[in-house]
């Protein structure tokens, strides 16, 4: 019962700010509404007993990405006033596409028999993830670090001023 109540509250904390993110005329309000959405997703991770992913979610999404987006909004002030039109002319088309996709996914989702299994998650989440990253998934780990380095260099090269 308490789990269901927590789930409903977290769903509202995720979905209501997400609606504000995609509909608000004020772009700064959109960016700040991302924070409760990300924190609600963090709550989901904690309910799903993924504590390490929850910590990383707070650090990277709620911390870094939101601040990055706010910085770029401040630096590109020409596009962010409340009197600037923020929606393009595809609003009916986009709403139709999103609603149809939601309908389709929900129908498929309720008709599928998911292979549920019962069991206990590992006691030490972060330790298990660390050893998985350095044994079975070491190639993914190395390639991801290479992608991080390249995107760091790429972002600096793209964003710097031409001399």
């Amino acid at each position, binding site marked *: 019962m308490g789990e269901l109540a927590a789930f409903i509250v977290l769903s509202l904390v995720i979905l209501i700010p997400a609606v504000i993110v*995609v509909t608000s005329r004020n772009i700064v309000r959109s960016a700040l509404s991302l924070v409760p959405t990300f924190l609600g997703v963090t709550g*989901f991770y904690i309910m799903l007993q993924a504590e390490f992913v929850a910590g990383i979610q707070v650090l990277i999404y709620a911390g870094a990405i939101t601040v990055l*987006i706010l910085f770029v909004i401040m630096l590109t002030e020409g596009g962010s006033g409340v009197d600037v039109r923020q929606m393009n002319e595809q609003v009916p088309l986009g709403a139709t596409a999103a609603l149809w996709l939601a309908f389709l996914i929900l129908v498929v*989702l309720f008709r599928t028999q998911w292979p549920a299994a019962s069991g206990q*998650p590992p006691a030490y989440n972060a330790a298990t993830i660390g050893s998985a990253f350095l044994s079975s998934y070491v190639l993914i780990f190395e390639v991801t670090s290479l992608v991080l380095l390249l995107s760091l260099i790429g972002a*600096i090269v793209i964003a710097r001023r031409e001399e």
Partner: protein
Amino acid sequence: MTVGLTHYLVVSTLLFCLGLYGVLTRRNAVAILMGIELMLNAGNINLVAFNRYVAPGAVNGHVFALVVITLAACEAAVGLALVMAAYRSLETVHVDEINVMKW
């Protein structure tokens, strides 16, 4: 009534479609990136929920969710750098006004 896999999948479906709506209807490139972040979060909820309910003893879903979070950070950094470069040369961040390949 306990919370099952389907509950999480329904919420992540709704979050994904909200993100898709944002991507399709926004003019501001930064707002489009916000929609993409919402869609990536919906995918991450799916990965962790399937890990919990289909293979509770494993951490494979967590590993993939962490990789997706890392790539989302890369994508945000490079995408916002591109927005900055476009704004510097074209004086706009609205994607329906950015219509030249070379300045």
